[in-house]
């Protein structure tokens, strides 16, 4: 299958569109600051009424919240504060559908459950008292949220995946030691592989695709393609029928790896961190 065979919806890269995104980003940051100021002033972020405890957790109606999946967009999600920072490898799985919050005990902006593609496993990036901060699979890239630790199953992945775009290499680490690395194919200049901290969201066999026996969708999305082939523009790791794509920037954002790499990467637990950098 060639790139041209797949219908896609370009998000457009005109100056006016980019300006609109920048402005909406600025607005979101401003709204976030206002929310923080309101919270720190001890007021209810919804009613504005003073509260006795600004960090007390308000009960939420889960049915009114959008679930964080690869198909959804949660613009109120706080951005990843350290998009290139490795973690100790802790990953968590919600034991039931629970609220995602902007801060420990703060406003709910979404929800996440124990299953989506398969089991939901999310990397832990911070922890405070009874709250755990995780990376999310929903748009925009670098989304995070706080979850109540009591509703999380927790374990440790010994793996870390580093993707270097300039050198087009993917390295697999086990307990901090590089076990293997491979030359890979990455996104074209107009559909680049997004930089930042994401994770292995799932492991799928897609009966509609023939280019890879197993596909590993990540928690990241193309920054330039709002949708792709009927999907939400999810970036993934997978093989390709020909090896000539390795060492080239020729994909629509996905990371194309040799079969030997996929054989090892499919053993890596869901929730394992994937750090994509410009090096």
């Amino acid at each position: 299958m060639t790139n041209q065979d797949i219908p896609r919806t370009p998000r457009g890269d005109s100056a006016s569109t980019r300006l609109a995104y920048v402005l909406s980003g600025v607005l979101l940051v401003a709204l976030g600051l206002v929310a923080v100021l309101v919270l720190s002033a001890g007021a209810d972020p919804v009613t504005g009424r003073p509260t006795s405890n600004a960090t007390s957790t308000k009960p939420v109606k889960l049915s009114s919240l959008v679930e964080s999946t690869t198909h959804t967009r949660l613009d109120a999600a706080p951005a990843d504060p350290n998009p290139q920072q490795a973690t100790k490898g802790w990953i968590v799985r919600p034991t039931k559908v629970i609220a995602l919050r902007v801060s420990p005990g703060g406003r709910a902006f979404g929800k996440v459950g124990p299953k989506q593609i398969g089991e939901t496993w999310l990397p832990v990036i911070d922890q405070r008292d009874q709250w755990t901060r995780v990376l999310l699979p929903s748009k925009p890239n670098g989304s995070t949220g706080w979850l109540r630790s009591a509703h999380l199953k927790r374990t440790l992945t010994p793996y870390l995946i580093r993707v270097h775009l300039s050198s087009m290499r993917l390295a697999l680490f086990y307990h901090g030691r590089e076990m293997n690395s491979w030359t890979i194919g990455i996104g074209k200049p107009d559909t680049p592989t997004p930089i930042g901290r994401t994770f292995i969201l799932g492991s799928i066999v897609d009966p509609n695709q023939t280019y890879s026996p197993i596909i590993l969708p990540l928690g990241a999305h193309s920054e330039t393609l709002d949708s792709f082939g009927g999907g939400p523009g999810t970036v993934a790791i997978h093989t390709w029928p020909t090896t000539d794509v390795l060492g080239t920037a020729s994909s629509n954002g996905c990371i194309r790896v040799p079969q030997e790499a996929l054989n090892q990467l499919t053993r890596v637990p869901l929730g394992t961190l994937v750090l994509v950098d410009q090096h």
Partner: protein
Amino acid sequence: MRPRALAGAGATALGAVTAVAALVIGTAAGAASPSTAIEYVPSSAYGIAAEGPVPIDPTPHVESTDGSRQENSALTVPENPLVSLEVAKVVADESSASAELLNLALAPGAELPDQLSALNEPLQQLMSGLQPACEAENPAKPVTDALGEVLPSEIVEQLDPQQLCASITTAETPALVSIELVKVACDEKSGSVEIANVALLGQQVAIPPLENETPILPENPLVTITANKQTSNKDGSFTVVGLEIDLGGGTEVITLGSATCGFAETTTLPPPPPPPTPVTTGLPVTG
């Protein structure tokens, strides 16, 4: 020479481990049984450091972040008008550290640098009072009186007027304070400090027993010297400082000999989750 070795406060906060380096021993990649990880809280040591108008970065400095033995030494300190030394040697390994300094001189020539001119007044008062007193026919009483104008009687009693006059009339005025040896060491649980031959204006003074945070000199307007300062740090490590010299009530603080002892902690990691079972589903990805 009155060296003292002291047992110090233990390193107590073992729960707050800061992992700087981790070594994993045990299972091969992909195996499902638990692994063991060694996490290191680093050990470190330095010879001299100063904060204030005359700052000095820790010199020489050494740190062991992976349990290996690290050594460093220096024959001088970065150029400064405040402190000189002849040899400093520092060592750090998994859970012990030490620093040894030889022949230190503080304010060589009994002159404080321009940056500390505000503190120079009592020193100049002392030196200008001593010079005519030493020239008197019978200098003992005038010298004692001149010293007593600035220094407390506990220090004055320890100074021999004749020797003091002999030393300040030589071509090279002695340092405000000189110390022949400062040696600090620690392990995971305790620290020790040795100090030998402390002299004020060339005159040796008695070193009191080195309990924790012992003042070496009675209270005086020139200099406060505190020996054997021991601290348990938040990350569970333990620091012992040989001497802390304070000029002007915190204006300039000089640390001589600092050793911080970390430790290694072995933890059993939970078994890694099994490889995920692929789910058959249609999710178009970016290809």
